[in-house]
């Protein structure tokens, strides 16, 4: 039984440590959030695409005056080359990507990086269910709207 007395505290310590220290590396800056305004084409499919993104601060106010930000598209499964492009500001805190491309069908994560108030930030959102161009059966959730059904972290 002494074994259990050693192992169980070790496990509890691991859980505690993972909760306390988790995500120190690569943690997004929670001061900035990103919304998907639109995705062209809609619904999103493999190939060239244009993402319109809106950045907001903690109070939900649009962030303006950044000029451009870096936008990275990556996927839920590791091992794919990320798509990294610039997005220029078009007014009303909307940023438009240039040269973005969905290289594979599936769920995409969009990471926006930039500098605001002198501090680097990273904000994330997702674009689920990017379809391959040759077929269009959608999952039930994707049928419910004409847009990209973005979810926000």
């Amino acid at each position, binding site marked *: 039984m002494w074994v259990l007395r050693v192992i169980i505290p070790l496990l509890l310590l691991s859980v505690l440590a993972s909760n306390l220290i988790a995500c120190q*590396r690569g943690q997004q800056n929670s001061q900035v959030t990103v919304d998907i305004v639109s995705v062209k084409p809609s619904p999103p499919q493999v190939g060239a695409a244009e993402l319109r993104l809106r950045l907001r601060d903690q109070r939900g106010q649009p962030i303006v005056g950044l000029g451009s930000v870096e936008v990275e598209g990556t996927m839920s499964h*590791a091992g794919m080359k990320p798509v990294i492009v610039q997005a220029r500001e078009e007014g009303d805190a909307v940023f438009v990507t240039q040269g973005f491309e969905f290289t594979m069908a599936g769920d995409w994560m969009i990471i926006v990086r930039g500098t605001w108030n002198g501090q680097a930030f990273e904000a994330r959102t997702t674009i689920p269910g990017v379809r391959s161009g040759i077929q269009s059966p959608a999952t039930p959730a994707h049928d419910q709207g004409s847009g990209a059904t973005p979810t926000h972290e």
Partner: protein
Amino acid sequence: MAHRTALILGSTRSPSDLQHWPILGRWLRWRHARTSAQVVLLILALLVLYDGFFGPPLAPKNLAGVLPWVHWRGLVVLALLLVGNLFCFACPFLLPRRLARRLFRAQRAWPRWLPGKWLALVLLIVFFWAYEAFDLWASPLLTAWVIITYFVAAFLIDGFFRGAAFCKHVCPIGQFNFLGSLASPTVVTVRDPTVCASCVTKDCIRGHFNAAGKLAQHGCELGLFQPRKVGNLDCTFCLDCVHACPVQNVTLRLRVPLITELDPTVNRSGIGRLSNRPDWMLLVLGLTGLGFLNAFGMVSPVYAFLSWLSQTLHITSEGLLLALVFLAGVGLLGITALLAGLATSVLARARSPWWGFRQFVYSLAPLGFSMWAAHYLFHFLTGALTVVPLTQSFVMDVFGHPLLGWPAWHLASLLPMNVVHQFVLLVFAAGFFGSATWALVLGRHLQLRFHVVLPWIVLQVVLFLFGVWLLDQPMEMRGTLLG
């Protein structure tokens, strides 16, 4: 005696004997060869655990999202195809086992009510279901917990039960490796059977005892007695038998893959006759079916299929849907294989209707493994280089400086996508060739006419065509199934 001396001196050299190869041979003869390999993987496992618990939650940005699911899986199948069961050999989960043995001095036998591979089979199915249901590949934290669970399970089980109970009866990865190693070009085997015939100590299985009567080297803890060991099943390539043999009559040797594995009626040491082992039969069927299902989960049509199934059955629980698909998929393969076996039994006028199934079901193993290999190699070949920017990023975050340079995120694929596609098709075709050859050679060995074996060839062709269709589908990197 002269023969033994010759073996010790290594005068019976053969190019197929890996212990006679320069550098490699010397390392294999080193008693701590396995430990050194295990330490390397242990360090990698600790890095994965660290990043899994404390790193970014995005799988592509985390060592726990990349190393296990892209590199480890790809290298496992590559090693099995090109060398042998290297990842059981270098398994880091067994290092804590040594500690457990010192602490507990396990004397208990594995329970008789849990014989063979039944528990491992259940765990295998549960693991692959959990992999899909909880998107393990997309969660570094869950991946880290899976690894922790593995370490704890190996520690507890081998601390409680004597022998290599975890490897033989529990480890799902091990069972995958055992079946994959059927196609491996190496085998741990005896150099000269006549030497074993005159052996009285049987150190290769009982262990080697020193002059003081103390155990100096374990023998095979999976119960494989070298003179009667057949092929690679249940062999972890631990090399205990190699180091235990006092006359160095056990070695790692090159071989023609599959050839010695074909006959299920051969009495294998530690296993018995495969034709009498329903657990092994179901393991082959399960791994083959899961291989196709796992690949099916990566292509676009699965979304349409699951959507249709969800609406038809009015089920919105993804876990339940996946469980149904798993049961239906493996069940369908099982029923088809039973029908093929029944047809073979009838055509061969066998006494038992099960005869054909028991003889030929193992011929599906190469095809099933090649489906896994094609799938895992796809991920590896298209994503192997992602470890470079990831390591750069890891070092930069941990040390605060880009000591290895700024992350080169443009690095990903080892080969162009079209070449990868052709390559994985070739691997899959090789598996089909292996399965068809297995059935035909076994049929010839059993003196059966071609039409008796035909049901199995037809089943293999159908599976092969389904697999080719799967591999031709657009891939999807999914994290959600029902939106």
